């Protein structure tokens, strides 16, 4: 059921992304790549910081929770006159939110199997 809700949730998040991709393809690609890097870096920093103090599964969980951020909250706190690139980033960051579980699953399987 959670999978179904997540799948439905992803659809409206992509609203307007195609228009931005056609207008600024390089920038959108850069923002998507940057958002992937941002999530993975935050994940790595927290996992490494907690690794000596927690068991493996807990440290990986802490890292994973640190990677995904509630960027839509930025829309609530930023003024209307804020840089529109911030809103481009909020759209771009949906890609790693939905793709990183697929990318990290083999790594987590290997690390948790030990």
């Amino acid at each position: 059921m959670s999978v179904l809700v997540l799948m439905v949730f992803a659809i409206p998040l992509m609203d307007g992304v195609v228009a931005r991709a056609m207008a600024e393809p390089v920038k959108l690609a850069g923002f998507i790549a940057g958002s992937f890097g941002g999530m993975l870096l935050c994940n790595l920093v927290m996992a490494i910081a907690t690794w000596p103090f927690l068991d493996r599964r807990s440290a990986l969980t802490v890292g994973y929770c640190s990677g995904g951020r509630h960027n839509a909250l930025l829309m609530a706190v930023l003024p209307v006159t804020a840089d529109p690139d911030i809103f481009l980033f909020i759209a771009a960051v949906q890609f790693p939110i939905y793709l990183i579980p697929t990318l990290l699953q083999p790594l987590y399987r290997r690390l948790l199997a030990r």
Partner: protein
Amino acid sequence: MNPLSVLQHMGRRATTLLPFSLLLGLLFQDLAAAARPLLMPLVVILLMLALARMDWVRLCAHCCAAPAPRCCWRVLNLIAVPLVVWPIWQGLGLWPSLVTALCLSAMAPGIISAATTATFLRLDSSLALLLLAVHQFPGALHPAAAGAVAAGLRPQDRPVRP
């Protein structure tokens, strides 16, 4: 076809199915625009489903543990992580707006769906939900982030529109 078995099958293939939902949104932009009002109700449903799947015994054990680790995690996640990643992004020569967005993102609280997707990855979903709950309070972006926003969005930094 049994709906329950379909849902179970989807659960086993979660990490494969999720990227396809992004593709659906990209291919059907009119549908994406029409579905925007569903965002908030779906967030509520996701949280309810995450709570329904919880191992409450394990969650209580985490809650009853010493509060110091949770406080440390909050400090690490909201303050230390942004301080670590900020110079890295600055040093890479990225678009200034992207650097600002990445740093702001590092100061934002965790995303609720992480508790759900943690289940698919066989991580500790109870711990994930507790961490995300701790992270949401007392506020979203904390004052340091607000200051960074104010500093980063000075009028002279805004792009000049043609």
